[in-house]
């Protein structure tokens, strides 16, 4: 029996891996397609082939993206905004979550409710009021016009994730720390932050992806080149009627690379932290 079942399980395994490979190809194909198009001439698009071998390779698209699409300058702006947003979001929401999850206080439930209610506010409904406020306090066309609303939209979700995690960690560690003489801030910074590293990294990645791809707020609140972020490089190549598709694909590749890399590095943390709250017990 044993000798019979071995090839059988092998066959199952092969089928299993083959189907996984198919799924992987389906997932990776858009990326390959994007990179392929970024190396073609604009006129080659929408022909009868899905993929076409670039002959010759149009590296000029990348040169155009960098020079005409202002990729380096916009990349720097995106990075500045992303770094500040990630840092503030992580610190503020971690502290807020700690208060909600750990400190017994009569308004606690309502504070948690208030933060969660903010999750259902649609982005579009805030654009016009925010424009008025920012215009009044002269924040239009500054980094703050991007940083502040981005943080505001990320806090509820991050708090949600952090609370889920904190509820699974035992209180005993903190109690021990307090007995050893740590005050509240000490507990947060010396105990909670080190043990929440996986959740922090997943919140950070979420914040990064959100900020990196954010466009509608940038369009509304930013006027001049000085503060434009990466997605503006894309529309740099659309005219009233015509578009330089090849350069757009080159820009898209440049924009997508950091996200893909980050995802590959942190993918384990993200999945583990997102399910951390779910398997409580």
């Amino acid at each position, binding site marked *: 029996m044993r000798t019979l079942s071995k090839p059988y399980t092998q066959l199952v395994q092969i089928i299993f891996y083959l189907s996984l490979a198919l799924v992987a190809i389906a997932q990776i194909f858009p990326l390959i397609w994007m990179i392929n198009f970024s190396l073609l001439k604009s006129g080659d698009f929408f*022909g009868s082939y899905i993929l076409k071998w670039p002959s010759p390779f149009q590296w000029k698209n990348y040169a155009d993206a960098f020079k005409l699409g202002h990729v380096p300058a916009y990349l720097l702006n995106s990075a500045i905004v992303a770094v500040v947003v990630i840092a503030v979001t992580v610190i503020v929401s971690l502290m807020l979550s700690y208060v909600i999850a750990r400190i017994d206080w009569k308004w606690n439930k309502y504070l948690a*409710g208030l933060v969660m209610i903010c999750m259902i506010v649609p982005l579009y409904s805030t654009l*016009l*009021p925010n424009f008025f406020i920012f215009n009044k306090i002269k924040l239009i066309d500054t980094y703050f016009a991007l940083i502040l609303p981005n943080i505001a939209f990320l806090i509820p979700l991050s708090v949600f994730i952090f609370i889920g995690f904190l509820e699974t960690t035992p209180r005993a560690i903190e109690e021990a720390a307090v007995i050893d003489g740590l005050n509240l801030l000490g507990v947060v910074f010396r105990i909670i932050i080190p043990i929440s590293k996986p959740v922090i990294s997943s919140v950070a990645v979420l914040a990064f992806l959100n900020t990196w791809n954010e466009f509608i707020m940038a369009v509304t609140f930013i006027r001049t080149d000085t503060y434009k972020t990466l997605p503006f490089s894309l529309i740099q190549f659309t005219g*009233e009627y015509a578009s330089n598709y090849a350069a757009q694909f080159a820009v898209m590749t440049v924009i997508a690379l950091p996200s893909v890399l980050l995802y590959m590095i942190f993918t384990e943390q993200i999945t583990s932290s997102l399910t951390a709250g779910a398997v409580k017990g």
Partner: protein
Amino acid sequence: MKKFLNTVTVIVMFASLVTACGKPDQAGSSSTTDKAPSATNTPNADKKTESGQKVEIKFFSNNPDRGGGQGKAEQLLIDQYMKENPNIKISVETLSPDPQFQDKLKIYNVSETLPDVTMMWGGARYLGPLVKNNALVSFNKEDFAGQGFIDAAFDSFTLNNKIYGIPKNTDFLVLYVNKKVLADRGLEPPKTEADLFKIAEKLKGTNVVPIALDGRDSWPLGLLFDAVVARQSGGFDLYHKAIDRSGSFKDPAVITSAKKLQDMVKSGVFGEGFLNLDYGAARNLFGQGKAAMYLMGQWEMGVSTDTNFPDDVRSNMIAIPYPASDDGKSPTTDLLAWFGGGYSVSSKSKNSGEAKKFAIWMFKKENWSKTVWQNGITFPAQSYDEFNTGKETQIQKDLTNILKSAKVFSGANSQDRFSASTSKGYLDAITELLALKSTPEKFAESIDVIAEKSNKELNP
């Protein structure tokens, strides 16, 4: 009881948060009153300039590409003006595609922060909300005397007998033709609508599409509808009258036009799945030699110099007018031509006087007209004969002939005459018709209802 009180407190807290967002609204409107005096102080601002004070003019354009096309023309003139007037700095903001540009324009309008000079479309649909808000300065025809403007060019920028924008282009609908693709199959460029069907018949089963058409954006379909209606009814009066309600879309000519359009779709004039082709896809289909013709405006004249396409396709391109009606009622000299784009000047900014001066300077014929024609960018709404260099492409020459020989001009196309809120429904109805999802009779009825609604909105 305590629980109830707590809940009430939370609701109050939340409500106060929400209203906090509303407050700046009031602040915004009070700032208008602050600004109003400064707007009337423009002569004062002018004096400042004469004394050499720096003035910043904000310029809002829908052409992000400043190195080609109309963005290039704008930038060349802006740079020249700043050189001639060192005290003036023009800062450019660009946004595209157009829906985003229009959204931001709305935000600027309601927040009273419209940039000094802004790209603008003619027609009540775009101008109306801004004029209603007194956001735009008005011009006189004398401001542009001697600059060779075609008289009708200002029509779509005129509201309540005042001119609120300067037209920049003469736009008209044509067919770009790949002579070789047709000749190889023993065909000639179409002269009448019947020829279109013959070509479609001959090309059936081959991998060449008779006419490449951008069906995903509904506006080209709207232009096609206008052209077909003109041919069936013998001119452009029908849709003009139907929209201003001195006529009706229930006219039999509209039903025959709708039927003709569906016949075209059924006989494969636009190929399979043309409703899924977007602008670039349709253009590339023609540029790669996979379509015999391409229906688009004169602004695509650069297609024959686009090095992304193979040489033998580019060297065989010509432009012809939309084919005449079979019965000769509407010849090719009835041209669907309009003056769509232009620029307006904000009346509420503190530099609006300087901005108006710049806008008028920009449209001296040796500035805009010469720049766009000699760079092969577009057809100005002004005369450009004196700027011919002899290096014009075949397509440029063909287009010039089409425009010169036209006897009847349509003026604003139908979609631009609808109100802002009804134009989408109108274009959706046309798309539905071309997707064969409605009958010609139902279609005529539904757009007539939309026209009635639009008319009520535009003339309350």
